[in-house]
């Protein structure tokens, strides 16, 4: 089959690789109809995630049709149409049983690699480094899906791929971010990052009852997309380095009730501290550039909530911890437990409360995946999200 392989920094190639096989008896094989590039794929593209091997198949947002099932698969059959959540979960461990699907204790055969850097391990993720399991990803014609009775969600016929594809990651991650803000009537939510996750967090915050949403980014067409959903926006590059003052003025001098970091390790801006972060990240003194994180910690109102869904891989410097400790900030974060939310979100799509296809600005054949990475990485041509057709 054809698959998009990581071949080094800024180097992905669509190559011929072996077809996936049933390796465990709870596996299914999916023939992929649509697959997407995630903002987090750019971390590997830019060489910021360790434990990558040349030839690793990328991609963790995919859907399609079941073409083969292992002996132990009971709830799915050949021909079923499914979306596949990015966290691989066993459904039986302590974590899965309480809905912490992305923290599954059984699906990361390389847990030992994570324990070295993170203390304890998470579950596996498709096409997302060896440290997250070493699973082949879904930017391909076919993919192997472990624990097929637990992970895929069946999708009714008659609804197009683009409306449900983002149930794999971007929509539930944005929704999880908003849900973690514990939104109360009258609340103002500020969201750093107007990429796909920030866009879904914006719409989710309104769905969950936020009165105002303020979105911060520097890419105008992305801010426009947030305004289309009813958000107010700030281009931080136009604030003369006074972003925090601008946000304070917009929120009655008190600050947003909750702030979401939908940016993560590849943040830009931040003046001198930002330049230092770039240098430290380049020489591996710091794995992440935590500019957005510092800002959300400073901007949120006293007693407010900080919700983090932007990816961080390791160590960060100059975090204003006194700000969150003394002001009693609640911080919640994590990789979204997609399987906990996807039934509810599919319902919202079917009821017409949201149409996630707005975020898909580009559709390319799988053969042109490298071009898709360039479009997303360079934010060219109004690109927010690239959908690939195998």
């Amino acid at each position: 089959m054809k698959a998009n392989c990581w071949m080094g920094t800024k180097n992905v190639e669509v190559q011929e690789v072996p077809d996936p096989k049933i390796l465990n008896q709870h596996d299914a094989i999916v023939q992929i109809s649509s697959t997407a590039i995630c903002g987090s794929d750019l971390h590997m593209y830019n060489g910021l995630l360790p434990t990558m091997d040349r030839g690793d198949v990328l991609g963790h947002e995919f859907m399609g049709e079941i073409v083969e099932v292992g002996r132990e698969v009971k709830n799915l059959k050949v021909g079923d149409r499914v979306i596949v959540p990015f966290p691989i979960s066993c459904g039986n461990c302590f974590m899965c049983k309480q809905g912490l699907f992305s923290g599954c204790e059984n699906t990361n055969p390389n847990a030992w690699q994570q324990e070295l850097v993170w203390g304890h391990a998470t579950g596996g993720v498709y096409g997302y480094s060896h440290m997250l399991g070493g699973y082949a990803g879904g930017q391909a014609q076919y993919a192997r899906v472990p624990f097929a009775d637990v992970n895929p969600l069946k999708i009714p016929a008659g609804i197009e791929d683009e409306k449900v594809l983002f149930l794999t990651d971007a929509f539930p991650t944005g929704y999880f971010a908003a849900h973690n803000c514990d939104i109360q009537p009258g609340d103002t939510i500020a969201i750093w990052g107007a990429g796909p996750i920030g866009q879904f967090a914006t719409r989710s915050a309104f769905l969950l009852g936020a009165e105002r949403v303020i979105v911060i980014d520097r890419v105008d067409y992305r801010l426009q997309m947030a305004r289309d959903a009813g958000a107010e926006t700030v281009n931080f590059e136009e604030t003369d380095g006074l972003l925090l003052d601008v946000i304070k003025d917009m929120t009655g001098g008190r600050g947003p009730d909750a702030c979401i970091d939908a940016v993560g390790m590849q943040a830009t801006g931040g003046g001198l501290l930002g330049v230092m972060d770039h240098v430290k990240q380049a020489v591996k003194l710091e794995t992440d550039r935590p500019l957005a994180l510092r800002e959300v910690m400073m901007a949120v109102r006293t007693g407010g909530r900080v919700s983090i869904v932007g990816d961080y891989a390791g160590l960060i410097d100059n975090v204003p911890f006194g700000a969150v400790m003394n002001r009693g900030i609640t911080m919640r974060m994590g990789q979204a437990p997609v399987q906990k939310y996807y039934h509810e979100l599919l319902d919202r799509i079917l009821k017409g409360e949201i149409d996630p296809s707005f975020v898909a600005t580009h559709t390319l054949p799988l053969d042109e995946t490298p071009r898709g990475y360039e479009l997303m990485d360079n934010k060219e041509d109004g690109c927010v999200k690239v959908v690939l057709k195998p």
Partner: protein
Amino acid sequence: MNVKKTVTIESSPEELYNFWHNFENLPRFMQHLESVRVTGDGRSHWKAKAPAGQTVEWDAQVTEDEPNRLIGWHSLEGADVQNSGTVRFTPATGGRGTVVQVEMQYDAPGGPLGVLIAKLFNEEPDQQVFEDLRAFKQVMETGEVVLSDATLSGTRLKQRPGQPPETWPLPESA
């Protein structure tokens, strides 16, 4: 060399003890074991895979056996690897499954065989015992050892690229 590793499993002490106590089950989750044959009177014969198609073998004797709580063993005279150990099964707090703790001691001989055995344990014996214990948890909680594309060959500590294998199962030499 002493190794101590602990894991918590969503099963009862009784189920876990019973599975482990049937030593012929152990190769299902201990990566290097080829076979264990129970020979009677608390004795068993163990055969482990070593690099270059070689094997190491030993006889073991059960030294302690408390149903649903504890199994202890040690190797008998003439073992390629002198080893002893215990596995304990203790109910976790609040009904949250069972804490399984393995303690092992072993002495690899010097010389070429010692080198072979160091390789057998991938020079990370600590890690290898933990990997086996994790695989035990996977077997008890999900029914099988969970595989990813990168972890198919020999020991999990050795990686292949994260793309599907050409054939499955892998040929013996892999």
